[in-house]
């Protein structure tokens, strides 16, 4: 019989090795997720947020929409000012590469925190944590990048982590929540999802038995957090602003993020696969608790209505995948593979693990560093956005109104932050339905599209070469000033009166048109 003190030492050593093994798996998964989440400025909204951040830095938060020549129906909602100022500061400090890296790291932090948001009483092995993290990273790939959605993804992960600690009896963690919501409410409207998740926790999770009144503490922290969220430029109107953004049908029609997922796209198929996986795992592993089930289905409904909620859903189910995947494996698969007696928990060899992690880190660096360079950002920007056409228009038509598609409106706001020469960009809640109708009239070529061009005094346009507006303006007799082969876009201007309209066909690239 072994001495009790030796048993204790062996137990502690076993625990340490188990922790190291879990850490290794989490680190490896985090490296994979980082490669997926570091992205260039693929979300076109980043440009007007950036322009606004610079404007706020110099002039404070504007009271009215600052870039467009259209009259905005509503006062400017400066709710995201902190995100915008941070964005501008990061770009100023390290360029686009630094912003991409920081946002990628924030997304990784969200995934790691979500994977660790598991009550300590539930033992989940490292491989299952890693699998759940990688699945989440792959699903998140389509919604993260340089976008304020990452802030909400991270915020939800922090909330889940705090709830899990609270369930373990560490109730002091909840007092960090008001500070979190104070910051979050000034960066992204998704803070409301965090409050709802907390509310669900208060209502559905029994308080830690060892801490009397712990549920009251969580409820109190929720109340203070809800009040802390009011400390932003919109003040008490922030909740009405969030609600109008969620339930305004005009917003759903004009923004792809507020539409249902298109399951022909691979990312939606991944989402569907993740949903089915979670439901199957819940079913075969004893079922979720009430909080997980109700909140999970709530987020699923939210994502089916608005695909931009995908990130919140993905983060929420990360601990569910880990816990229920591990449990289902133990219950149903492991006994069939290994027989009734369980295989002993295997620990990784420390040296081999260290070498593997170093190799993964090196591979990640090889993959990421070129993407973060200034030249890579410039190349991406020139091919994705009308950089050269904007420069051309700035030189040749200074101060004159420009039509462009809504997704490029933000870029033009960034390029021309003063003078109000931009038509519209993706902030429909501020512009209102009248401005949206004016935009749609041209974009969808409604019967009054020519009338809108005339009344709004628009004589120049920067548009993709394959856009319907290009063909339509050509029919009206507009001429191509220049063509940018890099972004495949055109600068077009209305022709002076008296020139006969051309034939209907527009040839791309336009013969005789110079490069922008």
């Amino acid at each position: 019989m072994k001495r009790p003190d030796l048993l204790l030492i062996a137990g502690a050593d076993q625990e340490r090795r188990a922790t190291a093994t879990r850490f290794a798996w989490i680190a490896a998964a985090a490296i994979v997720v980082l490669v997926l989440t570091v992205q260039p400025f693929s979300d076109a909204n980043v440009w007007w947020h950036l322009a606004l951040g610079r404007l706020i830095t110099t002039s404070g938060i504007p009271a009215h929409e600052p870039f467009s020549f259209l009259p905005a129906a509503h006062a400017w909602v400066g709710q995201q000012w902190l995100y915008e100022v941070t964005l501008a500061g990061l770009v100023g400090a390290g360029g686009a590469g630094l912003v991409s890296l920081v946002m990628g790291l924030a997304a990784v932090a969200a995934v790691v925190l979500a994977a660790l948001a598991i009550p300590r009483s539930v033992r989940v092995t490292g491989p299952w944590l890693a699998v759940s993290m990688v699945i989440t990273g792959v699903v998140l790939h389509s919604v993260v990048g340089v976008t304020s959605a990452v802030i909400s993804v991270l915020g939800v992960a922090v909330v889940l982590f705090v709830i899990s600690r609270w369930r373990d009896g560490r109730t002091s963690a909840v007092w960090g929540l008001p500070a979190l919501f104070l910051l979050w409410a000034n960066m992204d409207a998704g803070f409301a999802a965090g409050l709802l998740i907390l509310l669900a926790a208060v209502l559905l999770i029994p308080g830690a038995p060892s801490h009397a009144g712990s549920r009251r503490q969580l409820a109190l922290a929720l109340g203070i957090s809800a009040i802390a969220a009011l400390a932003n430029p919109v003040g008490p109107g922030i909740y009405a602003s969030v609600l109008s953004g969620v339930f305004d049908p005009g917003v759903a029609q004009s923004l792809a993020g507020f539409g249902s997922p298109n399951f022909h796209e691979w990312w939606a198929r991944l989402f569907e696969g993740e949903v089915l996986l979670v439901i199957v795992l819940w079913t075969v592993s004893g079922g979720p608790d009430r909080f997980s089930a109700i909140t999970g289905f709530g987020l699923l409904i939210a994502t089916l209505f608005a695909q931009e909620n995908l990130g919140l859903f993905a983060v929420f189910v990360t601990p569910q995948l880990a816990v229920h995947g591990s449990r289902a494996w133990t219950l149903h698969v492991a006994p069939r593979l290994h027989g009734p007696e369980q295989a002993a928990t295997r620990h990784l060899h420390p040296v081999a693990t260290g070498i593997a992690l170093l190799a993964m880190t090196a591979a990640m660096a090889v993959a990421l560093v070129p993407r973060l360079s200034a030249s890579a950002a410039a190349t991406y920007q020139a091919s994705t956005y009308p950089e050269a056409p904007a420069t051309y228009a700035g030189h040749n038509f200074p101060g004159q109104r420009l039509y462009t598609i809504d997704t490029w409106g933000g870029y033009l706001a960034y390029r021309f932050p003063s003078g109000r020469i931009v038509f519209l960009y993706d902030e429909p809640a501020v512009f209102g339905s009248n401005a949206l109708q004016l935009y749609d009239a041209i974009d969808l070529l409604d019967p009054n599209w020519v009338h809108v061009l005339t009344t709004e005094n628009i004589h120049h346009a920067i548009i993709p070469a394959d856009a319907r507006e290009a063909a339509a303006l050509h029919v009206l007799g507009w001429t191509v000033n220049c063509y940018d082969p890099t972004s495949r876009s055109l600068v077009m201007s209305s022709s002076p009166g008296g020139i006969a309209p051309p034939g209907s066909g527009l040839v791309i690239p336009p013969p005789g048109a110079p490069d922008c």
Partner: protein
Amino acid sequence: MSSVAAEAVHEPRSGFRERLDSWTAPSGLFIAAVLVIMALPVTRTIQDPDFWWHLRAGQLIIQHAGLLGNDPFTYTVANHHWTMHEWLNEVLFAVEFAVGGLGLIVLVLCTVTWLGLLAIMQKARLRNPTRGVLGMGMLIAVIAGFPIWGPRVQMITFAFAALTLLLVERHLVKGGKAIWALVPMFLVWSNFHSGFVIGLGFIAIILVAELIGAWLHMPDSAPRERLRPLLLVLIASVAVSMINPNGPTILLYALGTQTSGAQQSLIEEWFSPSFHDWEVLVYGAMLLSMAMLVVFNRHIRARDVALVLVTTALSLQSARHIALFVAASTPVYIDQLALATPRIRAALRRLRRAPATARTRARVQPPLLFRLTACALLMAGLGGVYVAWLVPKMQLQPYSLTYAQEFPVCAAQWLAGAPEPLKIFNQYGEGGYLSYTLSPHGDKVFIFGDAALMGDPLLYSYANVETVTPSWDSIIRASGTDIVLYDIKTPLADVMDHAADWTKVYQDGLSVAFVSTDRLSTLHLPPVPDWAPGSVCAKQAKATPNAGAQNR
């Protein structure tokens, strides 16, 4: 134990009277009412734009006493080989039309859809749910399928799929020889519609799921000795489905549609359902509540899991597959509802703090005569409603105002007066109607709804014109088009209205026509008719509420 089963245990059966009591009980009346109500949403006017070219193709098959090797309707892909996978259905359309007009076709297709729903109900009954749960589940399923119902060829596949699943489930639960009825059924189905591969796929999925389920010790696995006949039936069904004018290639035909990027991305009914559309909300609610019930009950058969997963994936991908979801998932939904009901009732009792064993009150049945009278009145009322619903839809003719608001009825009448056949660039969803009405006149269309026949390159060309990309004008001209007939208030129509080299030659409440200005004098188009007041086209010009739908 369900109440039906409980009644069976406690009350000795006494033949006819017992059944009469059962069907005149409130639960029996409820099911009878559900059966009639189910027929309402599936009974509609013809809204499927493809119906018209199917009808014309059937007439041509009869006329030529054989399948058409090539496409007779278009001037763009006339050299494409036409795989007429729906030939038998098209011939039946033509025969029904000759015998009873559109009304008979509407009646037959709606009846077929209703029979499919009946098969779903019968499958659900194999698991003995209470009548209340059965009826509620069926009503939810019928409303969930609302975006899809209507007289269209796909309803044949819906009904056959539901029948396939019923026969397979019956075999797995009860055994017997009835499963062999699938073999002749697939022989007929494969000549009706290429969707028969879905039925073959369902059987294969059930077989694989049962094997995996047995390995995982999932509940209520089918006895292994019943899987062998099912496998044999599957093999025989695959073999007989090749007895088809198209031969074995018909097996691969449906896959072409599923893998066509152009069809999936351009044709509206292949789009994913948008949950902002109220029509699919009940489908979404059914999907989500089923997921909740499965998680709540944690008891589901392997074959049910497989069927629900596959049809969920299909229906999320394309709204048109909601019908398959309804066919395969409704019995599972009803089963899950039945499983959850006792637990929900117990939970409600706990909430009300009622005693666990509720007092059983002796049910006093009203006199039989009273019940029969009530039953007759109810059925007569519902039957009357249904007949009042059905008859106006059967009375419509191809040139009725209802159709004139959806299809270019008036423009077709105008074009029929042209002295020479024309090549018409048309809206995708209107090619079928134009082919039906104008192909006897020799006119040809740019495109119609057999997307597989059209091919991806033509679909992409059409999309370039529809979305007015810079190449729109050159595509129309290069194809040899004589006249462009399109819906008003669409981007193409609005741009052509401003184009100097195109001249507007016709407009009604739905359509507008343009001709290249340099060809205007050579086409000898008929004058724009002055529709008589009170005529369908005069009314259409006033009544068409919102023209401009695309890719219907």
